[in-house]
């Protein structure tokens, strides 16, 4: 759902479906099929011993299964011999009996009997038949048992491998620097971590043991067919290229239809997305009818395209059945003629019929799995790319600084650049005493957020250093550094859980009272009580059941509850109205006592109360001081102030 047009969330039917020509996904060609495919198999390495055992078990089991029809055929021969034998005069030898038949003008029958192992006058030897059938019974039981063990073990191998891959990806995500997520779109990373791994799981589950089994069966059956009758085997073999030809021909025709289907699906989804997102506008502007008309037209197109794609690709199955049936007819006729001429026993024809049935099935399966393997390997490649991405520098072991910090922060000649040739911050120096509030102001792109990101070590400085209570932040484990800092971000991230859980996010084991207290202090309490489930209201993935302002309040409550030494407020209150902001500021003021605070804000009221105002322009601090001092200095701040905040005075009404 794919989220985007909602990334189609493909869940697995965790089992092999019948011939997958349904065209679930457009096939993606991978860049390096061989390399990635090998590496994907490599993911099974920790279980390679077991994997080989699976292969061995599979081989034995299939060999036994393949032998079955031949043994059964032998039993049929014995029965047939019994019937024919009974009809021949008792006491005569076989040669006499054959001669007798020939004399009677039954040449063909005579040929057949000549090739059989009959004793004239004797009926069916049930002793012999019984022995043969017992053998067949044994074969089948053992084969099924081995098959069972094999399938179980194979499941274990695949599930473990996929489990490990998911763990690897999750741990990798934790080690990736934030810059990685800035360069890649989140949706893209997300899609690799979820959709692609799902796809790999499905591919491995459905194809690994099946392809193995299908190929082995193919070889085994072919061998048996040649053993029984090379002529009939050749007849059956003819169907192979025919099948492949038909499958590829039809597949090639279906491909553009699928492309068309995905295209129209995309267009329809885009329309749906727009109409749902802009729902209120559609209603207020009375455009329901137009929207419905566009929908109807697109929906109709999708219907047509979908029909064509499904019909054409759906032809493969009947075509394969048709070829299989033709093959059956050929085997029956040619086999019948051969038996009549004594070149083949009737049991062999019976076995052959069974074999030819078994032959076309794996063929179709392998053909249909080719698509799947392609898309699975392409997914694996995308996951490997993620796993191979460059990581952030590892953290030193153990804590290096004191448990509690005062909050003395120094920026010493700090520089930072994203790309080598475009410096973002240069020669930045700043000293903040414990308990001070620092307001950072400046136009968009001045580097305000970057400053905070460097403090949090979301990015590493390219030059200079940042110290916390005199300790170089770069020498501290990131977790230690961040545990001293509380943060309220511009994007209000909440996870899918209750409001109470979200507030307690930074403070494990917080009591309900503490949560409510924090909520009251940050004015979350009031709106929470208007919700049907109060604090137990589950915030859904998109957080669509609370407004932007409310979300922001929750994130503030979250920072409030975690009680850090240093506070970072990144335009946190920009979508909370000023009155609420004042109330929050009161709460924050008490929270701020004894805590160093960095505030990025556009609101005058926020800035005015700060101990130090930093005015940033293109990565540099151009001014530094209190509100009054900076206004008096008539520099950059004074200009900014005049342009943004002084307007109400300039426009008396």
């Amino acid at each position: 759902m794919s989220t985007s047009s909602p990334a189609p969330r493909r869940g697995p039917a965790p089992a092999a479906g019948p011939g997958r020509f349904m065209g679930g996904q457009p096939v993606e060609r991978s860049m390096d099929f061989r390399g990635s495919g090998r590496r994907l198999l490599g993911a099974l390495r920790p279980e390679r011993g077991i994997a080989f055992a699976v292969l061995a078990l599979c081989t034995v089991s299939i060999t036994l299964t393949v032998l079955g029809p031949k043994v059964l055929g032998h039993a049929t021969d014995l029965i047939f011999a019994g019937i024919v034998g009974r009809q021949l005069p008792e006491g005569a030898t076989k040669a006499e009996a054959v001669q007798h038949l020939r004399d009677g003008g039954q040449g063909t029958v005579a040929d057949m009997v000549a090739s059989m192992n009959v004793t004239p006058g004797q009926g069916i030897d049930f002793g012999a038949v019984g022995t043969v059938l017992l053998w067949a019974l044994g074969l089948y039981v053992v084969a099924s048992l081995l098959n069972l063990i094999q399938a179980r073990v194979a499941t274990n191998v695949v599930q473990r491998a996929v489990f490990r891959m998911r763990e690897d990806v999750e741990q990798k995500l934790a080690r990736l620097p934030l810059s990685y997520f800035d360069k890649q779109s989140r949706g893209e990373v997300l899609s690799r971590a979820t959709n692609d791994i799902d796809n790999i799981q499905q591919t491995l589950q459905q194809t690994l043991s099946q392809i193995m089994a299908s190929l082995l069966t193919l070889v085994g059956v072919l061998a048996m067919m040649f053993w029984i009758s090379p002529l009939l085997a050749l007849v059956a073999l003819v169907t192979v290229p025919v099948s492949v030809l038909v499958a590829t021909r039809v597949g090639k025709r279906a491909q553009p239809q699928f492309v068309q289907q995905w295209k129209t699906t995309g267009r329809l989804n885009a329309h749906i997305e727009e109409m749902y997102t802009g729902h209120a506008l559609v209603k207020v502007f009375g455009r329901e009818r137009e929207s419905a008309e566009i929908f109807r037209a697109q929906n109709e197109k999708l219907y047509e395209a979908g029909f064509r794609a499904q019909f054409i690709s759906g032809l493969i199955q009947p075509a394969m059945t048709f070829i299989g049936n033709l093959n059956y007819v050929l085997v029956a006729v040619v086999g019948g003629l051969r038996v009549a001429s004594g070149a083949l026993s009737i049991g062999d024809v019976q076995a052959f019929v069974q074999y030819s049935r078994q032959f076309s099935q794996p063929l179709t399966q392998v053909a249909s799995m080719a698509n799947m393997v392609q898309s699975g390997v392409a997914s694996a490649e995308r996951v490997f790319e993620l796993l191979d991405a460059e990581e952030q520098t590892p953290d030193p072991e153990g804590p290096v600084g004191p448990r509690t910090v005062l909050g003395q922060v120094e920026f010493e000649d700090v520089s930072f650049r994203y790309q080598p040739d475009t410096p973002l911050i240069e020669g930045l120096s700043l000293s903040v005493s414990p308990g001070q509030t620092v307001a950072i102001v400046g136009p968009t792109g001045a580097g305000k957020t970057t400053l905070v990101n460097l403090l949090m070590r979301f990015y590493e400085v390219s030059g200079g250093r940042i110290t916390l209570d005199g300790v170089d932040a770069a020498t501290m484990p990131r977790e230690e550094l961040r545990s001293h800092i509380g943060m309220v971000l511009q994007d209000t991230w909440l996870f899918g859980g209750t409001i109470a859980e979200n507030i307690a996010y930074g403070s494990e084991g917080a009591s309900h009272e503490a949560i409510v207290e924090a909520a009251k202090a940050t004015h979350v309490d009031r709106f929470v009580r208007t919700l049907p489930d109060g604090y137990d209201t589950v915030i859904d993935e998109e957080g669509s059941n609370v407004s932007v302002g409310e979300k922001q309040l929750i994130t503030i409550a979250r920072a409030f509850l975690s009680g850090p030494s240093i506070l970072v407020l990144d335009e946190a209150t920009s979508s909370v109205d000023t009155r609420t902001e004042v109330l929050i500021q009161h709460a924050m003021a008490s929270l701020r006592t004894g805590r160093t605070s960095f505030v990025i804000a556009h609101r005058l009221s926020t800035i005015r109360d700060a101990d130090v105002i930093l005015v940033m322009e293109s990565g540099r601090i151009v001014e530094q001081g209190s509100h009054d001092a900076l206004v008096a200095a008539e520099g950059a701040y004074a200009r900014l102030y005049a342009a943004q905040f002084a307007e109400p005075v300039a426009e008396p009404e």
Partner: protein
Amino acid sequence: MLVRLIRAYLRPYTRTINVIVLLQLVQTLATLYLPTLNADIIDDGVVKGDTGYILVVGGQMVAVTLVQIVCAVGAVYFGARTAMALGRDIRADVFDRVQSFSAREMGRFGAPSLITRTTNDVQQVQMLCLMSFTLMVSAPIMCVGGIAMALNQDVPLSGLLLLIVPVLGITVTLIVRRMRPLFRDVQERIDTVNRVLREQITGIRVIRAFVRDGHERKRFTGANTALMDVSLRAGRLMSLMFPTVMLVVNLSSVAVVWAGGHRIDSGGMQIGALTAFISYLMQILTSVMMATFMFMMVPRAEVCAERVQEVLDTGTSVVPPLRPVAPLASADGGRGLLELRGVEFRYPGAEEPVLRDVSLTAHPGRTTAVIGSTGSGKSTLLGLVPRLFDATDGSVRLDGVDVRDLDPAVMTRSIGLVPQKPYLFSGTVASNLRYGKPDASDEELWQALETAQARDFVEAMEGGLEAPIAQGGSNVSGGQRQRLAIARALVLRPSVYLFDDSFSALDYATDARLRAALADETGNATVVIVAQRVSTIRGADRIVVLDEGRVVGSGTHGELMTGNQTYREIVLSQLTEQEAA
């Protein structure tokens, strides 16, 4: 749920479905007839040494095969048509239903979830249907037909089927029954794992800032382990399935040869029947396997069907009027007198209402402003006018008519809303501006742009009015989006303007210019402005102060400054004392 949904939507296609079943029947019977002919070849051709007969029957077999493929192709054709039509119909109904929703239902489901339900979930149900038509329909026919044909070959031998079929059926049922809940679990746990991952990626800064990596890792490994556990259980059950079914069938064929041998010995059966009988057994097996595979698709589709049905079962809380009323003055869009009388709005089950006992009147030619803190109900109040919500108590009247009785066409013409999130649709600047008034001239558009202070940047855009706008308006800045949204409402020339905090992304200077231009433009219309900036509203004719869903004061800026504590607090938070005076 799944059955209910599919049955309801397949009803119009009953005839086509009958054709599909018929075609599948013939197709299956043709397939089943082949082994019988093969038996004839053996019994009457091979045994008697009649080569000519072998060839004749061979010809018949070819003919039967041809019938089979024609019918099979026909079944695929009608199957694909019907399944795709089913998808189309469900999608259309879901879409129509969602369009009828009020903001309350939209909020309950959330737009992203509704999108998934309309697209992906319907797709899943449609796929299941397609598979059913091609595979599931033929499976039982194949099974019953196989049994019938076996009986036709030799009745006493078919007695074996009395044993085999129940054994097979019970085995498969037992496994499938245990498998279904497991598959459901697997699906749910995959969703959980993906959700945790999604949260980790989108919330990476917060997780790192709050040093919750360890917690998140534990949470993920927990979810991942849970997924593996249930996948393993499902996988093991799965791996039981195939060997067991194979064993039952293979053992049966052994039994058939043994028992068949005795039948032949006693002269009750011919040898050819033996081969045919084994073929039929194989066919019965195939049909059982096919049915099983189908069952595996079911749990997934079931979940999807439930989600789709939930939408279809949800009625809108804003019901269009049975007898729409158009006010007398509606020919020119009405005068625009807007009255709220004792309005309450409460989410079902909520402890406290969002709005309570709100009464206010907005007069034509005047500007009424609403101010209040976040969560004070300002946006909800505006939404009541164009019926994005309906009041749970009291009434909203436009030109004396309750909006619930108002002709929707009149409503559309009378109200110009600029929402808090200035959403633009993909298309061009012009197509967005014409959204409310498709026949507006370019001149009208430019004038609206001029008023909205958007003329300059639109002129600077490549293509001007025809410049492309990306979905949501993501290719223009927030401030530009807001001004285009304002221009869109202006083009409509409604009698009531509703501005929901529509000036927040503008700098103070642009805001002031825009409001000045707006005053000329709106003339005799009723203007309602919701805002957070005092400077935006202090010139309003009347300011209504909302607090915790109640009206706590109303009057001009001057009056409120002296008489209203809440208003003073708001103002003072934004302006210095001397600026406010």
